[in-house]
């Protein structure tokens, strides 16, 4: 029971990041327009010592091209590996599951807690942390004080995921790979957005989780809400801070489509069980039987290189006729 509970908690926490990251907050790498920006300039090699500004606005100096990297979030691990630096990872979280080869890397984050001793023992030349307190800011401070360069990533939109990939590319001298990856992500995302762009936008409710009667969904102006918008939906959002929505507000918003992110982890949540919930029966989505299990929840809510897969899964669920 305990491990399962812990896993659920972790799942919920990682979902909560995506669900409650406010898109409106200031961010140095922010560019508010979703989808396609100009292609990045020609790839170059990084020159060390290299000083970068991370998503928390911190100035980070990396003395030499890092060959020992610690990642403190699954999304960061995916970025590092997508830039062909998986072999340089010397520490990851116990929640990391992609790509498969990270299974053999030492866990320095266990049960959501960063083990600072294990990070220090790994002597990383770069630590890639997660913003919005997924990596507690006190831990980021402590690691920086120990003299390790800590790059904190906190993307608010799909476009900022690309910016973060480019940032990591500069940090680990993989700019060519980063530019190529971002170009292909932007091309795919652009095609998806174009395919669903002119269609009618159904009101979409994405269920992140229901705990003790409190319904968690995409927060107002959150990453998840922006992703649903890009996928051609009109997201029904919750409070930006708590990311919860009250049942009567949900009933009033009357979703035309219900997407069950939590069903990917909890087999007791099914379209039938949702339809049978007290008070849910009158919603258009329930009446029309438009309740869909989102098996791809992980890639939808993990701001890494596979986020476009998540966008595609959302677009397919919302507009099955337009996205094959």
């Amino acid at each position, binding site marked *: 029971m305990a491990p399962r509970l812990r896993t659920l908690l972790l799942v919920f*926490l990682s979902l*909560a*990041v995506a669900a*409650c990251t406010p898109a409106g*907050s*200031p961010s140095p790498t922010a560019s508010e327009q979703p989808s396609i920006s100009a292609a990045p300039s020609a790839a170059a090699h990084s020159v060390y010592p290299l000083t970068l500004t991370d998503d*928390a*606005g*911190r100035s980070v100096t990396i003395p030499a091209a890092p060959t020992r990297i610690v990642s403190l979030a699954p999304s960061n691990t995916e970025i590092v590996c997508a830039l062909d630096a998986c072999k340089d990872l010397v520490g990851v979280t116990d929640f990391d599951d992609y790509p498969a080869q990270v299974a053999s890397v030492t866990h320095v984050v*266990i*049960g*959501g*807690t*960063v*083990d*600072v*001793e*294990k990070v*220090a*023992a*790994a*002597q990383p030349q770069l630590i890639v942390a997660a913003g*919005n*307190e*997924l990596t*507690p*800011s*006190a*831990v980021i401070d*402590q690691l920086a*004080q*120990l*003299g390790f360069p800590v790059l904190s990533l906190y993307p608010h939109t799909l476009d900022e995921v690309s910016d973060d990939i480019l940032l990591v590319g500069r940090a680990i001298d993989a700019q060519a790979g980063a530019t190529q990856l971002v170009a292909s992500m932007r091309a795919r995302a652009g095609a998806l957005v174009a395919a669903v762009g002119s269609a009618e936008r159904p009101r979409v409710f994405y269920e992140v989780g229901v705990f003790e009667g409190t319904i968690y969904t995409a*927060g107002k102006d959150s990453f998840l809400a922006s992703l649903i918008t890009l996928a051609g939906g009109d997201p029904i959002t919750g*409070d*930006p*801070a*708590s*990311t919860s929505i009250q049942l009567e507000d949900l009933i009033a918003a009357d979703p035309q489509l219900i997407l069950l992110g939590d069903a990917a982890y909890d087999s007791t949540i099914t379209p039938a069980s949702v339809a049978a919930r007290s008070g849910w029966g009158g919603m258009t989505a329930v009446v029309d039987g438009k309740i869909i299990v989102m098996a791809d929840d992980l890639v939808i809510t993990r701001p890494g290189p596979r986020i476009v897969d998540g966008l595609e899964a959302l677009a397919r669920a919302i507009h099955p006729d337009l996205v094959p």
Partner: protein
Amino acid sequence: MRAAAAATTGRLAVGPSLTRTAIVLGGGAIVLGVAMVVAVAVGSVGVSIGDTAAILGHRLLGLPIPRTWSVGAEQIIFDVRLPRVLTAMLVGGGLALAGTVFQALLRNPMADPYIIGTAAGASLGAIAGLMAPILVPALAIGAGSSWLGLGVVQVLAFAGGLGTVLLVYAVSRTNGRVPVVTLLLTGYAVSSVLAAGVALLMFFSGQRLGAIFGWLMGSLANARWLNLAFAAPLLAISGALLVVRWRRLNLLLLGDEPASHLGLDVEREKLALTMLATLATSTVVAISGTIGFVGLVVPHLLRLAIGPDHRLLLPASILFGASLLALADLGARLAGGVPVGIVTALIGAPFFIYLLRRSRDLSRGAVA
């Protein structure tokens, strides 16, 4: 009754024999030393005892030892573990001392260092600090979050704890006196109001809920040399001023009126003791959050073992409180970094019940 009280007073005013003092405090110092060595030497990453000793000798004593250990080992021992163990000892000692004082001062066996509002005030302050980047967006970026090198969280927790007790004390004062019952009830009422504020902030905390929760449970994960430099002098001063007041605490155990008949300026003394104990508690809470149990139980355990005389009880509570928390925090670290408050309650409380059941001397051990 009066004769008995006078006899007790006589015994308590003279204090225990020198041998007994030497045994208890010497034993406590040895236990503390062993706890420190074990807590520094053991952790989630293995560093050999030899390397640990060499690193400490090199960094603390400046011994010219050739560097055979890795940079990582040195960082782990000197920058991660040592400040954490020392913080645990300061916090444990401070809480046990303040708990002993409050139990005697309020003549209440349920009293702990937080009882008249320190915990609620410090929690509200700390959580407001944790939420500051959300409440005041200008603080969200880097340097804005520290003040005099300390975090906003520590400063607000310290001010919140101290301010709340000042308020409670002022409200409880009637005709120049502060009746113990009024103080307890006012503390409870003010705490309830502040707790509602804490709950409200938690509801809107979003992703920061984890950090808030960890703070409320009490954790030493944020221990730094810098925090120690802030806390150690404040604790040394308040601790020393409390320990020298042992005779007055013994008198207060008799009750306000008998103590006053024996020549004690009771109201002045209660104010001094409350403020000193609150200063110690607020300092400790600022660097560790609200760690429960230590401040409640260590004084009781020691009273069961060595009796109620504060001459011995006060220094012993510092030594054993420090040892207990250093070892409890070692347990917390080895259990994957769970908040230390969980370890103290989970292991300490059943042990306490066992001792209570075993003790035939309960009536003497408990505070009246």
